[in-house]
């Protein structure tokens, strides 16, 4: 482990704080070093179980009380050809004794299960870092497959790293020889051996993993026992072998967390729970119409488990039918949701336009991925912002809400539901692949802290005609919100027809009148523009003395973690930088223009080619600078810190 001691003022994502202490006086006692944070990356073949290994290490780490952030990274192919570079799957975990914001820029430890995993990840590993390699896989053919002419374990190319050669496969098979498993079956537990070894290295609690394995393989107790045995063998290997002379402690991040009960949660899980909670808080049944698509399918899977909450999930024949069914359910009084990713949004566009015209509540959850077209299904991107904003025929405004961290997906879902139900409108919830699969600790909210989302359905006539007749007008609006009444089928006397053809203001009858159309278009726009959203908060320590920072960084969505980590570094270096983050992209917070005007320099980092910057320039005539990346991977904190410093000095 690299141990760069630095000032505690910079105790953030910036640097490690190391402290050495020798432990005990017995000859076999090993040295234990204390670290403030560690970044581990598990890498192997798609079939090696790296995601599971990472998940388990994460759970151990969460239950230990560290702050953490994760970055799963896997190919779109379920089983790419074994041992090849495209088939490499990895899981990076950053954990610390203080609050952290990102899965980390570069791993301190790389676990490489085969030559492909080493080759695909080595460029990200800084010199001096530790690499644990499964030597069993470094034979001629697997090495040749990825272009190693000579073994990197022997040719000196890894001299700059601290390499631990471990025959993981052999040791696993040896440990399981009494279990009566075939060699192939036994080999499959090598990921648990690796997990055991890393768990020893970092003093992770092990009960959770043993319990997990017992439950996962409840129907195959022999396999469960074998996996537990491999896991323990890995632990014991660390304990006994001389190659691993040092283990590390990362203390719980007790000061980083406010009082409360916590759990680890991924973005898609938090979002699913947010939808279930929104249904309960609105006292409406949740109806999900969806079609499987990466990386959104987990929400469909999760919600389908919660039928005992009255949640209906409908796996439709296509994306269009998914949103169609949701819209039909909305007409019937459900809290309607459709979940998808960018290509699915494209297919749903016409129905979103219909929902705009019908003015019914509907949540459109877009877990953005790399595009265009099929793009990079398992990688992250923020390039659907303009699609969400404008991707429909006609003037069809749709509010947009974007969560900023995995756990924040819960609150963002509730917020999106609030807007949809209050204003009777479709709402975009723009998450992305990074938030969806990444995880972090989440303070579990008390149920009575959750917002009240109950709605008032129409129950009787709302308009009096000139002759005194009481009638129901489906497009007579609430004066404050401009929302129209939600009258459910089954309500006597309120029978009405709605549709995608332009409607007469008030009556909702078909109208081709030019002035009426102009009025309705402007009214729908005004309704969305008038949605109440909290003002934008600016974090500007330099503003306290009146001077204000030299640069404002404005982000949205999942870039919050790396931007915030980078801002801390820049401040640590003594520079003046302000930060603000948008949750609401449509409408923008009322004070956004005023905030932008306060700063001479504004920089907008995005994982697209500058979509928010385009909106800001169009709306506020500000010279917002764009900093963009579309690699399918999140920004790194150090990378952004450099960009911000340059912008300040520019």
């Amino acid at each position, binding site marked *: 482990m690299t141990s760069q001691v630095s000032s505690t003022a910079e105790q953030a994502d910036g640097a490690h704080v190391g402290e050495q202490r020798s432990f005990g006086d017995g000859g076999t006692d090993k040295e234990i070093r204390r670290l403030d944070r560690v970044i581990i990356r598990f890498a192997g073949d798609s079939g090696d179980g790296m995601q599971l290994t990472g998940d388990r290490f994460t759970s151990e780490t969460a239950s230990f009380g560290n702050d953490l952030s994760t970055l799963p990274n896997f190919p779109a192919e379920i089983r790419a050809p074994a041992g090849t570079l495209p088939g490499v799957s990895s899981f990076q975990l950053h954990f610390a004794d203080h609050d952290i914001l990102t899965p980390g820029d570069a791993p301190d430890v790389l676990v490489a299960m085969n030559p492909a995993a080493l080759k695909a990840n080595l460029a990200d590993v800084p010199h001096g870092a530790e690499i644990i390699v499964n030597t069993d896989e470094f034979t001629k053919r697997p090495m040749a497959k990825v272009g190693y002419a000579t073994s990197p374990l022997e040719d000196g190319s890894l001299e700059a790293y601290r390499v631990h050669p471990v025959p993981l496969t052999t040791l696993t098979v040896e440990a399981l020889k009494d279990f009566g498993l075939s060699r192939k079956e036994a080999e499959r537990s090598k990921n648990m051996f690796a997990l055991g070894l890393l768990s020893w290295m970092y003093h992770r609690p092990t009960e959770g993993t043993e319990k997990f394995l017992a439950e996962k393989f409840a129907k195959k107790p022999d396999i469960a026992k074998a996996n537990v045995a491999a896991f323990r063998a890995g632990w014991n290997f660390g304990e006994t072998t001389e190659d691993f002379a040092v283990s590390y402690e990362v203390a719980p991040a007790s000061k980083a967390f406010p009082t409360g009960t916590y759990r680890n949660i991924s973005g898609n899980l938090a979002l699913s729970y947010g939808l279930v909670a929104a249904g309960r808080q609105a006292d409406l049944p949740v109806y999900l119409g969806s079609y499987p698509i990466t990386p959104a399918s987990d929400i469909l899977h999760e919600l389908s488990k919660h039928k005992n909450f009255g949640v209906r999930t409908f796996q439709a024949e296509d994306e269009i039918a998914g949103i169609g069914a949701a819209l039909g359910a*909305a007409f019937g009084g459900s809290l309607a949701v459709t979940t998808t990713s960018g290509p699915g949004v494209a297919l749903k566009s016409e129905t979103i336009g219909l929902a705009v015209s019908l003015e019914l509540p509907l949540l459109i959850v877009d877990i953005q991925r790399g595009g265009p077209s099929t793009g990079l299904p398992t990688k992250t991107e923020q390039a659907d912002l303009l699609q969400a904003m404008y991707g429909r025929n006609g003037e069809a405004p749709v509010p947009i809400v974007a969560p900023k961290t995995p756990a924040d997906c819960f609150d963002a879902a509730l917020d999106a539901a609030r807007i949809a139900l209050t204003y009777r409108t479709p709402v975009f919830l723009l998450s992305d692949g990074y938030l969806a699969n990444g995880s972090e600790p989440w303070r579990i909210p008390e149920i009575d802290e959750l917002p009240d989302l109950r709605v008032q359905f129409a129950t009787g006539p709302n308009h009096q005609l000139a002759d005194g007749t009481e009638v129901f007008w489906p497009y007579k609006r609430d004066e404050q919100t401009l929302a129209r009444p939600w009258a459910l089928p089954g309500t006597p006397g309120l029978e009405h027809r709605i549709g995608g053809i332009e409607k007469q203001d008030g009556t909702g009858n078909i109208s081709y009148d030019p002035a009426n159309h102009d009025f309705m278009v402007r009214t729908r726009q005004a309704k969305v523009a008038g949605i109440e959203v909290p003002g934008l908060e600016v974090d500007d320590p330099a503003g306290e003395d009146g001077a204000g920072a030299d640069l404002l960084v404005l982000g949205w969505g999942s870039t919050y973690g790396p931007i915030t980590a980078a801002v801390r570094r820049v401040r640590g270096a003594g520079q003046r930088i302000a930060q603000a983050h948008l949750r609401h992209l449509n409408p923008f917070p009322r004070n956004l223009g005023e905030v932008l005007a306060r700063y001479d320099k504004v920089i907008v980092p995005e994982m697209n080619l500058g979509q928010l910057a385009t909106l800001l320039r169009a709306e506020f005539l500000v010279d917002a600078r764009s900093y963009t990346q579309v690699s399918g991977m999140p920004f790194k904190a150090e990378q952004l810190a450099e960009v911000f410093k340059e912008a300040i000095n520019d």
Partner: protein
Amino acid sequence: MTETIPGPAAGPQALALVPKAEAKQSMKDFKSDQEVRWCPGCGDYAVLAAVQGFMPDLGLAKENIVFVSGIGCSSRFPYYMNTYGMHSIHGRAPSIATGLASSRRDLSVWVVTGDGDALSIGGNHLIHALRRNVNLKILLFNNRIYGLTKGQYSPTSEVGKITKSTPMGSLDAPFNPVSLALGAEASFVARTVDSDRKHLTSVLRAAADHPGTALVEIYQNCNIFNDGAFEVLKDKEKAEDAVIRLEHGQPIRFGVPAPDGLGSKGVVRDPATGDLRVIDVQEEGTDGILVHDAHSPSPTAAFALSRLADPDTLHHTPIGVLRDVGRPVYDTLMAEQLDAAVEQQGKGDLGALLAGNDAWTVVG
């Protein structure tokens, strides 16, 4: 064919959860205040009148009836019904209605669609609604032409049809909507004609009583762009040879009456090919004449009947209920799963769900 022909598969349970009207209803109750804007002479008027006329027979609370349509001339239908209604977008009505029906079992949900809407742009939704057997009644107005876009050929137009978009004749082989529906596992498939009010009403009634998805193909005349498309089925003399009226439990006979009072033509199964063919009863006798069984578990005979019609001349077109069988209904199954989940896991406890199994506590 089966020896005993069972009674209707459906029964009233299709509408069991839909509240009944408190007072007696009349046709007038189902007319909205909107002016009907179809072309004068359009077949849609007849269908609208038939639907408005038969609705009171169902005796349902009209606030629990919903008409959902797509795009096309016929899809204006919901505006003219004084029920709840949605005029949606092209081809998507079955999916929207699926969401509504599967979340609200207390509603009687009707889809109004056309040959372009249901079979072209919305073909996917139609077949999936049929296979799922959602509690929907789909009225497919088939005029074999695109009317609203002013006269292009449709997926049911005959090959070689000269239209604005096919000046040298259409190259597309048409769909037979009844065959398509049967192939899509439909539990109820019927065909009727706009001008035959009595037949139309009886078919609508059977569809309403059917639990699950019912598809009713209604041959509808577009007097502007495809006038007379079904004339052979309507003209008194020609119709005798062209139309095969199917009635459950009755031998399939049609044509000029034979001495026994039934039609002089009959439908028999060719033992060599298994296919159906039309015979002259006076020449070949009545032995082996097929008895229509709409409730047969197998759709084979219904499918064979649907293939008797000549797509160009419409000769030997069967009308009536071709298939009406009981099959688990999607919305019922969906509701049962929710109930079962509560039974197995208890009613959802949000606090417990959010807490999960691996929580830890931080004391400040």
